[in-house]
């Protein structure tokens, strides 16, 4: 009888632990499946596009209480690519991203608000060219958690986030002077992975 009770207790404890572990899953950003893209108005003609190649970070998703979720992303500013080498160099200069002095762009969430079954608003500090500015992103979780057949122990999932960065908040006066923006639309598609 004692053995049965002990077994039940152990089972409940393990289930609780397991539940807690599942409730807050930490995914590491897969550098091969992450797209941080941006679009900016080019003198009214069209929306110029670009992306960053090197992105790292982690996402902690608490399914039971989404407000306890966390996001931390680091972007290598030198990896900017707008499909034109000269423009990439221009954007790396102190007129824009100033990569020689501030090679990293970081975003760390400070609050997450649930807005739907798989959506929420993520507020956090965006640190760019030496300035910290609060930014809010509209985020969606794909809801899909699955593994590749050849790597069954690594669970993958995906997130999408969009937001607007105001160039003036970072003192990027050259954005407007060059007939760009002034707002920069940011779209982030991230696949994260965790080991079972």
């Amino acid at each position, binding site marked *: 009888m004692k053995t049965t009770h002990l077994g039940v207790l152990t089972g409940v404890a393990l289930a609780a632990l397991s539940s807690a572990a599942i409730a807050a899953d930490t995914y590491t950003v897969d550098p091969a499946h992450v797209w941080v893209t941006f679009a900016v108005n080019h*003198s009214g003609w069209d929306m110029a596009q670009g992306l960053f190649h090197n992105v790292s970070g982690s996402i902690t998703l608490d399914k039971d209480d989404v407000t306890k979720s966390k996001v931390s992303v680091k972007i290598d500013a030198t990896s900017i690519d707008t499909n034109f*080498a*000269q423009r990439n*160099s*221009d954007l*790396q*200069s*102190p*007129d824009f991203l*100033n*990569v*020689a*002095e*501030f*090679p990293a762009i970081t975003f760390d969430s400070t609050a997450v608000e649930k807005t739907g079954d798989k959506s929420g608003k993520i507020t956090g500090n965006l640190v760019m*060219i*030496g*300035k910290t500015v609060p930014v809010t992103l509209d985020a969606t979780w794909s809801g899909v958690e699955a593994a590749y057949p050849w790597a069954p122990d690594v669970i993958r999932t995906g997130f999408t986030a969009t937001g607007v960065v105001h160039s003036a908040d970072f*003192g990027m*006066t*050259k954005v407007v*002077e*060059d*007939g760009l923006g002034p707002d920069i639309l940011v779209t982030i598609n991230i696949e994260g992975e965790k080991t079972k």
Partner: protein
Amino acid sequence: MFTSLALNTVVLPFAFGLALALAGRFGSKGMLGAAVLVLSAAYVLLEGLPGFPPVASKQKVLYLFALAAGVALVSRFIPPRAKVLLVALTGGFLLGAAVWLGINKFASGGVMASAFVLAPIVAGAFGSTGLHRSARQPLLWPLALVCLAIGAALLSAFGAFVGFAQVAGACAALIGAYALVRYILLLAGREAGFAILSTTATTFLTVSVTSVVILIALFAPTISQAGVVVVSLTLILPVFVPDFASQPRALVPVLQGLILALPTIGAVPLALMIHQP
């Protein structure tokens, strides 16, 4: 957009340069103050007022202008023959400026890659031994600084740093306008009515424009390092350029200007070699 670009980069700095030359009407005492005022105004027009403390290096340049004015005032008490002191003062300032400007870049391991920045520092320090010539040859140093600023503007533009190509261009427009007025006064035989830039004011402009060159050299993403070394030679030339005393006075600035322009003429092809649109 382009109207504003031309206005802030060329037209207004040119007007400031005219004002600087005409300020000589009120004597030489206020020339340093006038030079500090117009150069700072030209910078603020293009880059805005920097916060304090400055975050990015380009915001430090206005503070360097203020410090350069201090260096110029100290240099007033150093006799021209005390060359070691002049070199130590100017070189020390320019080296300090380079360290302060580049501190964030150096912290991430870019020290050796920036060794070529020693060129404007050494050239500027050496050139300071020839600053006293500005008292006898009012156009020698202004012409040198115009050539240096034009070279720096081209290197910066080709180096993908358009913002400071504008700042260097504004320096060229400002000092060029001053030189133009002085040359017209020379042709008209009315030089005596307008005080020239004092050696102190010339020292201020020299270390300030050299500081701009240093910033461009450190931060233009695709800078031509060889171009920076070559254009820096402009700072050395005023020490050696002949007086051309036997030539007509109106011809002297032209001859000197041709010599002073040689480094910039040489630096442009070097910058173009790096530039790949």
